[in-house]
């Protein structure tokens, strides 16, 4: 198979392979085809060299990290693709079932919204980097369409009573209530900049 992205050394590829493999204990399975998986990892390392971050080798990156944040591996779309198709778009991650049965996987179709793709980016949802000003910010909390279990519109007061903002990892859905997002997601290992304010 043609491979013109050999910038990364074998050791680098093996190191990243081992690092990503370790997430299996948290339910993230790498493709069982090691050669295939290492070819993708080589692509990730090549992207890191040219863009400064490991964007998906099967997607066109802009080179602007803020615009490409959702396609930095693991991408925002991985979990949904693995659940629905048994593999993510590039095939690096597969479902537990596919892994255990050594199934041959097919790539998932593109889930990324078109407007998020190259040159049409409106992707900005930064996690607050300054500290959380509890009182002041609580008063500003507005969440629409929240329903209580009996169908009555939730009053804003209840949400305003939250003592911390609720933050969500866009990669794996991990939710935490704290003033700032963790540096690294304790579940999937994504960086802090992949968190959004959820409530």
């Amino acid at each position, binding site marked *: 198979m043609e491979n013109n992205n050999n910038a990364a050394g074998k050791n680098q590829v093996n190191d990243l392979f081992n690092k990503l493999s370790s997430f299996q204990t948290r339910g993230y399975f790498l493709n069982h085809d090691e050669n295939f998986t290492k*070819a993708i990892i080589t*692509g990730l390392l090549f992207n890191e060299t040219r863009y400064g971050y490991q964007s998906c080798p*099967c997607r*066109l990156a802009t080179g602007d990290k803020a615009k490409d944040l959702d396609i930095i591996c693991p991408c925002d779309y991985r979990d949904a693709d693995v659940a629905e198709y048994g593999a993510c778009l590039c095939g690096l991650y597969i479902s537990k079932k596919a892994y255990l049965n050594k199934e041959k996987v097919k*790539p998932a*179709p*593109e889930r990324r919204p078109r407007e998020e793709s190259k*040159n049409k980016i409106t992707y900005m949802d930064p996690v607050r980097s300054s500290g959380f000003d509890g009182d002041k910010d609580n008063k500003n909390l507005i969440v629409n369409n929240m329903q209580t279990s009996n169908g009555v519109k939730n009053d804003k007061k209840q949400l305003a009573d939250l003592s911390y903002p609720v933050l969500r990892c866009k990669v794996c859905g991990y939710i935490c209530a704290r003033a700032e997002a963790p540096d690294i997601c304790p579940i999937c290992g994504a960086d802090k900049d992949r968190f959004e304010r959820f409530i």
Partner: protein
Amino acid sequence: MPYQSYIKKVSGQKAKEIMLFTLSTCIWCKKTKALLKDLGLEHSYVDVDLLFGRDQEDAYDTMNKFSHSTSFPTIIINNGEDIIIGFEEDKLRNLK
């Protein structure tokens, strides 16, 4: 310089005009190129990620115009007569 000057041609049996929009890092693009080569079919490709600025935009817009697709590989057959998106092994084999 237009992106067309970066198109690479792989010689082989000329069944149909096959144009691939690919990424140099994409595993499915590599599989597609390898399969077409194995089948011995003449085809052309351009690695869109290796283009810069206008050239990249032109290539991306052209691919988009044909296929309404933003994913790779996108394979244009006979100038738009048929489009294959992704590594669709059966469809690719049928090109022969």
